[in-house]
Structures are given as structure tokens and as C-alpha cells.
């Protein structure tokens, strides 16, 4: 026994040394990725395509508090870089808009010439000088075929409409109280054919608790579209007392009941989920996420990863060794509760994650995942995480006063992080961003979208970086299969086709599903062209579920092309 005890004690000492000095992470590290095996090429070409944009943000508070909050301004200014894809001139080519938040700075609207380049034309549309814009959402609120624009700002949201000269003019400013917001979604919640708004806010105040804050700007507010772009506030269902900090609102049929559930990605607290009932009202269902450890939700990106079963919802969170190891989440409903499989799928670690986007980058039939990350990139030697040790463990009253926070100034707070590109392989997701040199400058990514530059099924990627230059990554990956794309035109359903579900039945029996909610994600608007990678298979039939309940079928569509699906033109089921 003595000998055995001595042996065990030696083992303990060795174990202790190993824990302290050996990096166990290396043991669990996946083998180095061979980028050539994936043949993925996302080359940064912003100069080549004539995109030259640097996001700016500088807040100016009231004189009496501006000096007091000076040190925290990098924190307050860290939330507003967004990008919106829109075919603003209706020529069939995807354009995109990027607002610059700083007062007096110019936002940019890039018009796709169709030849692989863009022309900046914000002034022509009167979109260059906007009042401290944060995020834009282009949608047809009166179903006249022309996109209006919802603009959230550092204050209240504003609605714009094109005038007879094609310039955007303010037609409505939403009333107070309102706060800085990246969190809105536009969809037809009551299926009356008009697109409604759901808005939540993040604001410029600090939380009173890191995981259980209750001093946020408020709940999720609905604005019902009465027709002709007139909106009335409708809060009877979501007028909740819990005041949270919301980064994004996602819409998803999470329980496969043809309902439009809401998922509010919430910082400093649990995410909020609202199940839609049969009468289109909502009931809060947060308890389903009890025991979720990650309370820094930034983005909501749903996707049907497994064909026709329940959709998976990717929530960006924070992963920072030493301080926050819970990481991203990938929630899927199993009939009774949501189950998080991010770790098993290999997508839980991507630094301080923001925007997220599922798209099939190589058309192999499996959707890949791109995640933008990085919070505040300052002096790498000066880490804000360690400064938080001084004031983080405090009472609510103390923490809620921003004067008690350490100044951020030129520190780094999860900065200098490389965005992630998770390739979907038969063995799970693999992060190949380093192998393909994606985001080599390690900028602070926020809004993230895909855009088909040449309408050839190869999706390029745009990343809006906070107070830094925009990145445009051209997809030059050799296609590993066929693709097909759709543009929806509603008739009795809303004209943009938002909320429509498309199911592709392939010749091998598999089903691919996508629901068209372009405002999911974080601070981004996706293209109205819905892209599917098919791999080597052809499409046997396309089934479209319009939001008004109509289901239509289209047979044997031509591959490697975009199709306009107009409501009523298919074969009714």
C-alpha cells in the first residue's frame, strides 16, 4: 500500500505540472486543415471591385456627461457596422448599402455594374448623408415593387421612401422612447400581406449585471403595417417587464408548426424566445433555454441543416480563454426542448462572435458557416479582460454606473481576431479561415452577408467591420456541384416573399429547405435571391409555402440559374 500510495502521489505531482505547464488544447486540436482539399478560395478584392469604404462612428453625448464617459466611448461606439444587400435599381444585379454612423460621414451605396465591379452612388439616392445611421433594412412596405428603407440610428428609427426622382426621403420617424438599435426584423407576422416590424434596442447604457441584467432599454416592440407604409405600435403581446439588451431578432419556425417564432439574441442575460400561437399572438418561452450558460447572444442565424426536420439556430456568443469558455450555440428543437450541439458540430469556438451566415460556398450541397468576430482592437499589450477583474465582481448598483467602469481607451477587448469560415464536411464543421488566409488583418467584423457578384451561383462574402475598412471576399472556388436560386414575388402574400419557405426535393430523395427571412443574422440584410447548393444532384421538384398559406409546386427547374417564382404561377397543392 505504501508503494502504491507513493506511486499515486508521484502521478499527482506530474499531473499538476502538466496542468500548469502543458497546453491541453493541443491534444484536442483537429489536425491542420489542408485548404487545398477544400478548394475554397475567398480572396479579398475590395479594391479590385471598386469598393472603398471605412466605417466611422463617433458619439457625442450631452456636454455635461461627455467628459465623464470619454473612456467608455470605444465600448459605446462598437455596435453599428452593418451591410444590406438590395437590388435598388431592379436590374437583376445585387447591390449593397453600408451606412457610416459618425455624424457628417458618408454612407455608401454600391451599384453592381454586372461586370464584377461596383459604382458608388449613394448621393444619387440621397443615402449618403443620413442622421447617425446604424442599420438599414430595404423592404417593400406598400407592395408597389419599390423598396422602402427602415433606418435605425443612434436615436429613433426612420422610414424612407423613394420620391419621383428616385431619391429616398424621410416619411416617418418612429416616436420616442427609442434607443440605438441593431435589432430589428421585418416580416409579415399576421400574414395579412403587409410587412410588419419588430424592433428591440441595445442602447448606450451599461448593464447592471454580466449575466442577469435587468436595466436594458426594454422589450421587443411590434409595429403593425396598416398598409401604405403606415405603422402602428402593437405591444400587447410582447410588452414584457424584463428590460434586456438585444443585439438581434431572428424569425424561425423553430417547432415546424408553420409559425413564425421570434428569437431575440440578448446580451448580459438569457436569450428571449417567443412562440407564435395559432392566433398569431406570441407567448414568451424563455424557460426552454434554462441552464444555458452563455448569456452574450449577438446574432440569430437559423438554417435547416438536416433537410426537412427542425431548423437549427446558431447564436453567436463569446469565447475567450481564461474568461469565457462557453462559446457559440447551435440550438435545435427535439420536440420537447432545445438542444445545443455547437460543440459536437465544431462551431462553438470563434472568439467574440458577431455576425453569422449559413451559405453553401462551394455548391457541394452542404451549407457552410461564416462567422465575423472581434470586439475592440486596440493595443494588444493592454487587455481589457484583465482590467475587468477590478470592477466586474460588484453589486448591480455599482456596475450600472458607467463611471465605475475602467476606461476602455486604447485597450484590446477580444480584438485582433480572425473571422471563421466553417466548412461543412461529412465529419462536421472545420474552421479553414487560417488555411485560406481569410480576414488576414483580423478586423472587428460585424454585419455579414453573401452576394452573388456575377449571378453565377458563386457567393462572395461582404464583412462590415466596426470603425474599419469593409472587406469584400470574392468567391473563386471551383464549383463542386450544381446550384439553383430563386427570387420570390408575392401577390396576396407580401411582395418581397418574406416568410416563404422553399423545399427542394432532389433526385436522390434528399430535401433541402430554406425559409426566406433576410433580416436574420446580425446587423445585416441578406440578398433577396435564395441560393441552394445541390452537389451532384438535380432537383426533382420545388415546393413553395407562401405566407398566405398557398402551397405551389414547380417541376424540374433548370439548374445553375436563378428563377423568379411568382405567387400563383406554380401548380397549387
Amino acid at each position: 500500500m505504501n508503494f502504491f500510495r507513493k506511486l499515486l502521489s508521484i502521478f499527482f505531482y506530474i499531473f499538476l505540472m502538466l496542468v500548469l505547464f502543458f497546453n491541453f488544447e493541443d491534444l484536442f486540436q483537429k489536425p491542420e486543415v489542408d485548404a487545398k482539399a477544400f478548394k475554397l478560395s475567398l480572396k479579398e478584392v475590395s479594391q479590385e471591385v471598386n469598393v472603398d469604404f471605412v466605417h466611422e462612428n463617433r458619439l457625442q453625448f450631452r456636454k455635461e456627461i461627455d467628459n465623464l464617459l470619454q473612456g467608455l466611448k470605444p465600448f459605446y461606439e462598437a455596435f453599428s457596422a452593418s451591410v444590406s444587400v438590395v437590388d435598388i435599381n431592379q436590374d437583376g444585379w445585387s447591390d449593397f448599402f453600408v451606412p457610416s454612423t459618425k455624424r457628417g460621414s458618408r454612407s455608401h451605396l454600391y451599384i453592381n455594374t454586372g461586370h464584377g465591379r461596383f459604382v458608388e452612388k449613394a448621393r444619387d439616392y440621397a443615402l449618403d448623408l443620413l442622421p447617425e445611421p446604424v442599420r438599414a433594412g430595404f423592404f417593400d412596405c406598400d407592395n408597389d415593387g419599390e423598396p422602402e428603407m427602415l433606418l435605425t440610428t443612434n436615436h429613433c428609427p426612420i422610414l424612407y421612401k423613394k420620391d419621383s426622382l428616385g431619391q429616398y426621403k424621410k416619411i416617418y420617424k418612429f416616436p420616442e422612447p427609442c434607443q440605438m438599435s441593431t435589432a430589428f426584423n421585418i416580416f409579415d407576422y399576421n400574414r395579412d400581406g403587409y410587412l410588419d416590424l419588430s424592433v428591440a434596442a441595445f442602447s448606450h447604457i451599461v448593464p447592471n449585471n454580466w449575466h442577469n441584467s435587468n436595466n436594458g432599454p426594454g422589450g421587443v416592440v411590434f409595429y403593425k403595417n396598416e398598409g401604405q407604409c403606415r405603422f402602428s405600435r402593437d405591444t400587447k403581446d410582447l410588452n414584457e417587464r424584463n428590460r434586456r439588451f438585444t443585439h438581434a431578432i431572428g424569425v424561425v419556425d423553430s417547432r415546424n408548426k408553420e409559425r413564425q417564432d421570434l428569437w431575440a439574441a440578448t446580451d448580459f442575460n438569457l436569450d428571449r424566445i417567443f412562440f407564435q400561437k395559432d392566433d398569431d399572438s406570441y407567448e414568451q418561452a424563455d424557460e426552454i433555454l434554462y441552464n444555458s450558460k452563455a448569456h452574450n447572444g449577438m446574432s440569430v442565424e437559423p438554417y435547416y441543416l438536416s433537410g426537412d426536420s427542425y431548423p437549427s439556430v446558431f447564436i453567436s456568443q463569446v469565447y475567450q480563454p481564461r474568461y469565457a469558455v462557453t462559446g457559440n450555440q447551435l440550438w435545435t428543437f427535439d420536440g420537447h426542448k432545445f438542444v445545443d450541439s455547437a460543440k459536437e458540430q465544431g462551431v462553438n469556438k470563434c472568439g467574440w462572435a458577431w455576425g453569422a451566415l449559413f451559405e453553401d460556398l462551394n455548391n457541394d450541397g452542404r451549407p457552410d458557416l461564416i462567422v465575423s468576430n472581434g470586439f475592440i482592437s486596440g493595443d494588444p499589450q493592454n487587455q481589457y479582460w484583465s482590467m475587468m477583474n477590478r470592477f466586474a465582481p460588484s453589486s448591480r448598483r455599482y456596475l450600472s454606473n458607467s463611471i465605475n467602469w475602467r476606461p476602455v481607451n486604447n485597450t484590446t477587448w477580444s480584438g485582433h481576431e480572425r473571422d471563421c469560415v466553417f466548412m461543412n464536411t461529412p465529419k462536421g464543421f472545420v474552421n479553414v479561415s487560417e488555411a485560406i488566409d481569410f480576414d488576414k488583418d483580423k478586423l472587428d467584423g460585424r454585419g455579414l452577408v453573401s452576394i452573388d457578384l456575377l449571378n453565377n451561383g458563386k457567393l462572395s462574402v461582404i464583412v462590415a467591420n466596426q470603425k474599419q475598412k469593409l472587406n469584400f471576399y470574392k468567391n473563386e472556388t471551383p464549383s463542386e456541384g450544381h446550384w439553383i436560386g430563386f427570387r420570390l414575388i408575392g401577390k396576396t402574400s407580401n411582395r418581397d416573399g418574406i416568410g416563404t419557405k422553399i423545399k427542394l426535393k432532389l433526385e436522390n430523395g434528399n430535401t433541402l429547405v430554406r425559409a426566406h427571412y433576410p433580416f436574420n443574422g446580425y446587423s445585416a440584410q441578406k440578398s433577396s435571391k435564395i441560393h441552394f447548393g445541390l452537389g451532384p444532384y438535380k432537383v426533382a421538384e420545388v415546393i413553395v409555402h407562401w405566407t398566405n398559406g398557398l402551397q405551389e409546386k414547380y417541376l424540374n427547374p433548370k439548374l445553375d440559374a436563378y428563377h423568379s417564382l411568382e405567387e400563383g404561377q406554380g401548380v397549387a397543392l
Partner: protein
Amino acid sequence: MKHYRIDLTIPKLGDPRILFLIFTMVFLFLGLRLPSFGGNFFDYCMLAGCCMIFDFILRKMITGEWVFPLSGLTTAFGIFIVCDVIDNIYYLPIAFLAMGSKAFLQIQGRHIFNPGAFAIVISNLGLVHAVSPEAILRWTGDLKLSLFIFLCGLFLAIKVRRWAVVLAFYGVSILVSPTLSLFSPIPPLSYVHNLMWEGIVIMAFFMLTDPKTSPSHMKNQLLYGGFIAILAQYLRFLEFRLPEHTALLVGCLVYAIFRKYSLEKDSAEVWKIKEVHIELF
């Protein structure tokens, strides 16, 4: 037919560890009902199971006795409310660190470190990609809860005759912090709020007062509490992660070395225990 008998040592009802156990169970029961608590009962059972198994087996190996693993159960509580893990499998090495420190890191037959504090500090230092002290931020920030913990902790500290340690810890902290705030942009009130924070209250009343690793004579208790206070405040000033737990570890080591070479021996702590004999077929 052959009979087997196990002689098992278990605590009596008056043993202070039973009080602590009741506190932890009530705390966990209430905490697990909170949405923001983040953990679940299965996670705690896994951690507690690992700690208890290691405690049970290692104690048998070291002392030759079967002892009910109460220490493992209470140690698991301290770790559970502080540490987040990326995967529950990491509870295994954390539990081994905790109970192994008790079994193998000893001076004069007494373990040096509070097992929970040891595991928390070492795992957060070494397993940085998998363990973080974020869990403690998930249920803290409420002054009412702080008061509840303070009252329970005070009762326990009096019961184990260690209230002087806590008094010294808080007293010296309050004296030292204004001095440190002169060299830092953080106002003195920050240190006060920090001292009232639930995580510190639990550490002070439940870990600092561990009778096995803290002095029993009042004079030594005051020195011990004061030393840890100064070190903790200084580590916090240096923006060290887990400053209080780290200071506790250093304090335990200093006290253990002092006890080895001191002429004045602290009395060995005696729990209220009894032996039970379990007959197996």
C-alpha cells in the same frame, strides 16, 4: 457464509460540516431554479460524484479508513458555483486536483490547501481553454443574496470558532483598499462593493474558515486573515484573475510552513464523528 464488514466514519449531527452541507443544498436548490444560474442538477451531480469518489478512494489509500466523502461533496459545491467548463469531462481533472491536493499535499499529516480553492485556482491557471471563473458572475450582484450568505456564513464561522479570521480579512481589506486606490483610477468605493460581493462573502466565510487549513488560536487567525487580505487586495490591484482565491492558497501555504516550524502548536481540529459498521452478507 463469509461476512464482510466496512467500518465507515461519518459526521455526527453536531458536526459543523453538516451545517455547511445544509447551506449548500439550500443554496443549490434555490440557485438551480434561477434561469441565469446556468448550471443544472446533472452537472452538479457529475462534479460531486467525481469529487466524492476521489475523496473516498484516496482517503482509504492514505489513511486505510473508509470515511464518508463529505469533504468531496462540499468541495464540489465551491467549485460548481465558481467554474465554467467547456465540457463536463473536465470535472474529472478538476475533482482530481481538489481531492488529490488534500491527499498528497500535506505537511505533518495535515493537508495544506483548501481543496476547492486549490482546484479553482490551478484549473483556471492551467486549463485556460476549457475552464473559466465565469460561473460566479452568473448568480451574483444582488445585495439581498449577499446578506443571506453573510448571515449563514457568520453563524458557521462562529460555530467553527473562526470568526476572527473573517474579521481580520474584512478589517484589513477596508484599511488597505483606500491606500491602493490612491495609485489607481478606481475609487475606494469599488473595493467596498467588491468586498460585499457574494463571491467574496462565500470565499471569506466558507473557505477562509476551513478549520483544517486555518489557525485555531485567535492571534494566528488575525494574522492569517490580515495577510490574505493584504495579498488579495494587492493582487486585485494588479488585475490578477481570482485574486482572493489565489491569496487564500498562498496564505494556506504560509500557515502550513509556519505551523511546521512554530513552537506553538495549534490544536488538532476534531470533527464530531462516529463510526458505523456496515455488515455485508
